């Protein structure tokens, strides 16, 4: 597209608008950043002094939170892309009755607020004990990962559906003609060609599950089982913990930003590989 050059006045207006909107959007981030590096910040516009102490405190106290987060979000995102790929394949490539319903069902999680989902799990699994562990299912840590999985499934499903749509049917038929069964075709052709999209879906699901609080807040039964977002919530309960809580918040922002960026890069690279492979 052709680019136009702006007059000084227009430039000022354009920059002004963009900066104003960015400030509105980013002011919480800026506040959080200042809080995480500040010593005391109460009645002045800016903190009284700056320190790295908050990050040290945060690191000492939230190793469990971070490890839990990686575990939960990792399980959730992995299951999401596996289920997402399966549903995408069933919806796009088979004629099974009710396949559309499966799609809607998976997407329905979007319509349920996280807190509601959490309460639902609590009520449903309250009196069901996990075999061998003896705890009620509702307070077992695995239920947190399950809730995150359900919450992120719609996004993973979209990513997997888009990835499968990119794989032309002729590529599968060519394999079948050459003696590959359906299972072998999925294994050797379909899934490898979906890798980029699946990976992007994984990263997005992981990053957003990592900072999810709404469902988690209902399901965390002990601080030892708490993930990162719950950790921020705990820190924020005490005035002295705010700095460290803010530091953990910055970690969360970085996780999501890095995840989003990674997913963009993966998608772009994947697109390049496929588009240049096409015939003109």
């Amino acid at each position, binding site marked *: 597209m052709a680019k136009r050059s702006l007059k000084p006045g227009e430039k000022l207006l354009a920059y002004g608008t963009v900066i104003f909107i960015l400030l509105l959007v980013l002011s919480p981030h800026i506040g959080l950043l200042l809080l995480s590096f500040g010593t005391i910040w109460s009645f002045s516009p800016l903190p009284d002094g700056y320190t790295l102490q908050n990050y040290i405190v945060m690191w000492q106290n939230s190793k469990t939170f971070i490890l839990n987060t990686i575990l939960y979000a990792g399980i959730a995102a992995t299951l999401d892309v596996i289920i997402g790929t399966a549903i995408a394949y069933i919806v796009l490539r088979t004629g099974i009755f009710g396949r559309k319903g499966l799609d809607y069902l998976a997407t329905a999680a979007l319509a349920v607020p996280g807190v509601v989902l959490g309460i639902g799990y609590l009520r449903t699994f309250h009196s069901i004990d996990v075999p061998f562990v003896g705890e009620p299912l509702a307070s077992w840590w695995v239920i947190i990962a399950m809730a995150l999985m359900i919450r992120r499934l719609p996004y993973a499903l979209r990513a997997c559906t888009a990835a499968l749509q990119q794989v032309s049917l002729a*590529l599968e038929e060519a394999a*079948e*003609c050459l003696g*590959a069964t359906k299972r*072998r075709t999925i294994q050797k052709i379909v899934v*490898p*060609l979906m890798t980029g999209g699946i990976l992007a879906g994984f990263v997005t699901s992981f990053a957003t599950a990592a900072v999810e609080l709404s469902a988690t807040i209902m399901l965390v039964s002990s601080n030892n089982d708490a993930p990162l977002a719950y950790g921020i919530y705990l820190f924020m309960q005490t005035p002295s913990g705010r700095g460290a809580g803010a530091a953990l918040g910055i970690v969360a922002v970085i996780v999501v930003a890095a995840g989003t960026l990674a997913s963009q890069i993966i998608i772009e690279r994947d697109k390049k590989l496929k588009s240049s492979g096409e015939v*003109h």
Partner: protein
Amino acid sequence: MNKAGIKIENLHLSFGSTEVLKGVNLEIEPGEFFAFLGPSGSGKSTLLRAIAGFGPTPKGRILISDRDVVGLDPWKRNVGMVFQSYALWPHMNVRNNVGFGLRERKTPTDQIRQKVDAALELVGLADLAERMPNQLSGGQQQRIALARTVVVEPEVLLLDEPLSNLDASLRIQMRRELLRLQRQLGLTTIFVTHDQEEANTTSDRMAVLDAGIIQQIGSPQQLYDTPRNLFVANFLGTANILEGKVEADGDDAQFLTKTGDRLSLPKGSAAAGSNIVLRPQNITISDKKGRNSLPGKVLHREFLGSQIRYLVNAGGAEIVVDQSHSSGKDWFETGSAVHLVANTKSAVVL
């Protein structure tokens, strides 16, 4: 090398409530180069895909080497297909693309290497084995797709509009190469195309399809010279069709056009019919009235180099006449009154 005959018996196929193939009967000889020719929507690709095992399961029988394959999964058929889009897998290099079918057949690794090299040699691209598909030109991708298919030694080779994505000059080169390869391997081959020139130049015999029905089967010359119906006459080359009726008087038969002109028909031509088909090269244009001539008026004239194509209003139709051109030869001007002399020996009454 495998040589398989194909026999298709009373094949019906529907997509939902739309019937796409309506009772196809066909026999293809072992080692034959056969073409399915027809306009889009005629069912030619559907028929090809049914032979490969794709699409809805048809009713009827498809016998490959006397084995009925209807309802059999594609991977159990040993039928090789080259797709219009080539369908090379973008995540595998050329060697792995070509070796895929052999790996699926559990061929020993050293043999795979040998066979892949031989197949690449066959299509003249031995030096591209390590390239990725997106580093190849359209023509190269086409050859790799061919190599990938023939390397598994299928009983039947199916080609679905394989030349339609190539530019004109490459298309002519590729179709010669296809024919050479087919003769060399002796593979029973079916070629689907909507381009009559491609079908004419490559195939031993062809089937012209329209509306899910085979209109006629025969060699390209047979179909061109003696079309069985108006669709075939029109689809293969340019056909001038005059309406009218046949008047027989003993051995002597004449075709009476709507405009009352008479063309005498050779002995043994069809005794009935309401159309006469004349090819543009079987009519000469003249300023004098003669035997078997029709009066007309030149509507349009095109200079094509080796010949001049006239569009003449005569016998109640607009008739295309091709006259060979050589320098110094006179032209008939647009609007001038002329006489068309028909060579009724090559005419077909339908």
